[in-house]
């Protein structure tokens, strides 16, 4: 008899749990904006603590150090002619998605809508759109390509009082118009895929940092993946925002 009562209790309890799950399942899912485990919005300035000689100045022709080059890439890179790019109106070749985050300057991150995160740069005045979920990709290749975004490794918000925490933003970009991985003309092809992880840290002194890990995979011009991590520091406001056009030199 005792066993029967216990079994009936278990059945009742499991039914209640299932019912509760069902109720939760009926809830409207959170938008990517509402579910964001980290807040990346605001103005950020790039802090150049490495690769100074590649980022702060245009390196000499043929200096491709640190890029996992292949023969085809070196051959194309050695043909670099900025005057030709200027004449063709292609000054933005080194401002495409595989390279733009390494360009020193400020970036402004904001939500374009509930499912699209927007990144604007003052250097080169580029705009990137990170789409969560399905979207209509551009038909023709562009400097910034088509980017799909997802939150990764985070603990989502649970009910009241338990905010989302940790995690990073993953962005995968394809559909790129061929350009330069480095300002001195090392190329990337239209078959390039860029995978990025955006991580955020909050320091005890109040500083807020954005670390962008960029993995460039180009089967045409790279021997291996080209991986960099780029640091940005949060700015209190848009002071210093200084839009500048692309330059080829």
């Amino acid at each position: 008899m005792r066993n029967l009562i216990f079994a009936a209790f278990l059945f009742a309890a499991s039914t209640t749990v299932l019912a509760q799950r069902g109720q939760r399942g009926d809830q409207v899912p959170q938008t990517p904006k509402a579910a964001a485990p980290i807040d990346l919005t605001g103005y950020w300035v790039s802090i150049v603590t490495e690769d100074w000689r590649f980022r702060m100045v245009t390196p000499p022709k043929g200096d491709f150090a640190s890029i996992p080059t292949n023969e085809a890439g070196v051959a194309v890179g050695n043909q670099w002619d900025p005057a030709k790019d200027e004449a063709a109106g292609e000054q933005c070749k080194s401002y495409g998605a595989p390279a733009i985050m390494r360009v020193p300057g400020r970036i402004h991150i904001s939500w374009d809508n509930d499912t699209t995160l927007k990144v604007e740069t003052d250097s080169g005045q580029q705009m990137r759109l990170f789409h969560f979920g399905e979207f209509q990709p551009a038909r023709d290749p562009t400097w910034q390509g088509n980017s799909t975004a997802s939150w990764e490794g985070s603990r989502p918000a649970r009910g009241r009082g338990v905010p989302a925490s940790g995690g990073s933003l993953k962005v995968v970009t394809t559909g790129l118009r061929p350009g330069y991985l480095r300002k001195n003309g090392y190329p990337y092809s239209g078959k390039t895929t860029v995978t990025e992880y955006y991580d955020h840290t909050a320091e005890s002194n109040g500083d807020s940092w954005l670390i962008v890990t960029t993995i460039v995979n180009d089967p045409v011009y790279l021997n291996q993946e080209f991986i960099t991590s780029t640091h940005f520091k949060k700015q209190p406001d848009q002071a210093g925002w200084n839009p500048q056009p692309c330059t080829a030199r």
Partner: protein
Amino acid sequence: MRSVVRLLTFVAALPVLASAQQNPGLHTLHVQGNVYMLVGAGGNVTVQVANDGVLMVDTGLAQMSDQVLAAVKELAKPVTRRPIRYIINTHVHPDHIGGNEKLRAAGTTITGGNVLGTISDATEGAAILAHDEVMKRMSAPTGALAPTPFGAWPTDTYDGDRKELFFNGEAIQMFHPGPAHTNGDSIVFFRRSDVVSTGDIFVTTSYPIIDLQNGGSLNGIIDALNFILDLTIPAEKQEGGTMVIPGHGRLCDEADVVEYRDMVTIIRDRIADMIKKGMTLEQVKAAKPTRDYDPLYGATTGFWTTDMFVEAAYKSLTAKK
């Protein structure tokens, strides 16, 4: 006014010109503080000169001993009448210890009190300091033939990760970073002059030389380069500050070591990734993991070629621990 400046420049350059004439092929460069650099004797030679005498880091090739000694005397002449007191060896290779015997014989060890009175030859020759592994490789057990003459051997070794001395009003630290270029490397830090002498852990003329036979390690070189970066502090705009004398090549500062460390790390990671993918040594060589750095550090002929570096790196990364 311009003529006066020219004249002063010429007069200031006279000692250097004289030195160059007496020691063809050997160049003397004042680094900072009491520290100088001799270039052209094989490996770079570091010389600290002040009132108490001379301390040298490495002694170059044996066949350059006379020129090195002449250059050291030239440097010491206006500063002190005291001789070479200490020689520090950064590692065991002949382009760094070759002059030990002759330069030691030209110096005198600092002793005093009872030692001086009871042991007649206690002051004979400068003291040679090195890591214990250097001594092991230069000497041989009793009865066996040693690879180097007795007079070239270290007189004072250390076994831990550091040794220190105070000379010419300056604290000098020797650090053993563990297996790197060899397993007996020392990095020498002149604290007052703010100069680091690295031996062949850091060179500007080639990819890092990993002497596997003498216990070298690629990861150890990266660790040692990071250690050097812990010692160095750049001045304004990341230039200058602590100066770094490499085992071979030009005088450097922290930024140069950073670039080199980055290069070694990037290539290490590439080769490690290829090993992880199951690539053989020949496949790794064919993939040219160093291609982008070859214009700066690569060589197809000579003592240390790119192929030899890739092979040593591969073997170091695949060696059983």
